[in-house]
């Protein structure tokens, strides 16, 4: 039995060295930092998969609004169906399937569009309308009060534009803004 103990002892020692080697190789080469998943809104193509691919029943992705980019248009192409009957808040005129985009009058001719987050499903219909015909101020973001930070984001796996990546946890959002030029 002595030979056995010696053998297993030395094997144990070498496996411990191997574990230490893995630890050293990983911590030595790349900075270990906490990261979370986020959408790059400039890469997003509004395909609608965010609403369906998230592991949560109601996606962690929601529409957010960068108000400083918004034109406060009376005819908002993110809010209204193409060729709406009337420019009012009737449901048949709205693009949003859940009525999560709220239109409120500020002053003639300006309207403000805010998102009722609990209703938003992240389908990107409004984002598409705003990006194609407007200023692109509506965009999708992963909301970290909902995201469970899966080891591999299943929306990222399905994203055709490869727009979802891990970002440092201390800068967890990538909002669009007027200043961004690159």
């Amino acid at each position, binding site marked *: 039995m002595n030979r056995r103990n010696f053998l*297993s002892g030395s094997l144990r020692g070498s496996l411990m060295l191997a574990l230490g080697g893995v630890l050293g190789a990983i911590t030595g080469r*790349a900075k*270990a*930092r906490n990261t979370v998943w986020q959408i*790059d809104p400039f890469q997003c193509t509004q395909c609608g998969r965010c609403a369906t691919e998230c592991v949560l029943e109601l996606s962690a992705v929601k529409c957010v609004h960068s108000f400083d980019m918004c034109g*406060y248009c009376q005819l908002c192409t993110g809010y209204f169906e193409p060729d709406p009957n009337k420019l009012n808040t009737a449901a048949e005129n709205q693009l949003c399937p859940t009525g999560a985009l709220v239109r409120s009058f500020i002053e003639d001719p300006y309207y403000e569009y*805010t998102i009722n987050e609990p209703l938003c499903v992240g389908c990107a219909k409004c984002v598409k309308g705003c990006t194609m015909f407007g200023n692109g101020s509506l965009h999708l973001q992963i909301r970290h009060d909902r995201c469970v930070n899966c080891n591999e984001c299943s929306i990222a796996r399905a994203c055709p534009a490869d727009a979802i990546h891990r970002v440092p946890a201390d800068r967890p959002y990538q909002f669009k803004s*007027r200043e*961004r030029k690159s």
Partner: protein
Amino acid sequence: MPQVVAQRFPPPQFTETSHLLPVPTEPAVRALWLDYLDIGVLIAALVLVSWLVLRRRSRSGVVGVGIFSVLYFGFWRKGCICSIGSIQNLSQALFDSSFGVPLTVLAFGLVPLLFALFFGRTFCAAVCPHGALQDLVLLKPVKVPNWLDHSLRMLAWIYLGLAVVFAATGGGYIICQYDPFVPIFRLSGSLTMVLFGVSLLVVGIFVGRPYCRFLCPYGVLLGVAASVSKWRVRITPDTCTQCRLCEESCAFGAINKSAVDAPSQPRATDKRRLILLLVLLPVLIAGGIGLGGLAGGTLAGKHRIVNLAERLQLEESGAVQDTTDASAAFRAGNNSIETLYADARALHHRYVVAARWCGAWIGLVIGLKLLSLAIVRRRTDYEADQAHCLSCARCYRSCPQELQRLGLPVPETPKPANG
């Protein structure tokens, strides 16, 4: 390359009101101290289970910690990050120096292995929520025939090889994608995965821990570490009297029988078989390398970039007319198709190399398995198989010596096999 957003409409000029522009809210990410708490709970649970299994020899204690782990690491933490999945982060980091791994992942990946080197697979016993959940549903254990048990256990080694290939090449985390129990912990998921998880649990009522034994890639690593562990599960607290009462107590086929009364083969047959298997080993490895080279291309097709390049090639050649979301997104961006093709070629090459290694690994594993089956160790005691024992503590109470130690009534002992 992100484009400049078209500013089709000028910003509003409010004159009648002094309306201020709102700013989007930023819900906070999970606090860092909660991550450290997870690491603390992991280490505390490992210490507790190791003590309960090896010192207290308490099955009920193990069950208690198991229920806690299912609730905490499972339903509360949604099974993520888990040690099984962390293999992929660690492999990706080893092969891609720009890929960082946070402390939580390092701890979940390495600490249970370190514990296994000293205390055996106490992580599997009750700390891993996957294992604990399956342990709780195991009500009517049936014995899996030896040949089937040994063959099915090979699946886990192959799964580990494939998971490392995909993680190291940036092709995705298949362990996470095909995890059967995380959808149950989350209480949501795709129908196929929920059905897979539920059916594994139903099978698990009869077959002890099917995922742990036959699929878990982390269990493979833990098994290797545990096979040279410093301390280990000892069925009897005293000396083995060969009473054979523990023989059927293990639900996982992890008790090595005493070979005192086993008929021994003539030495010449043993030797011939060993030589044959030693010759077979390099043949198996070479075969694995060959098959890996063939499979590499197929595996590469699963990678996003290779997939996209193949699609674009079809579109460019006019073989297909329409576009996919991915190819349309690629064309909409400011991307060079030549760079993409070059990337795809490089990836294809990486996959072929990785698949050859994986094939060699599978060949080696099968060869060593056959060798280990051919070598008969002359055991004098009934003892737990160090690599396969999940430290669940079920076998303790089957030993009359243990019952005596605890002051419990000892059942009628059958005649010892060796008279």
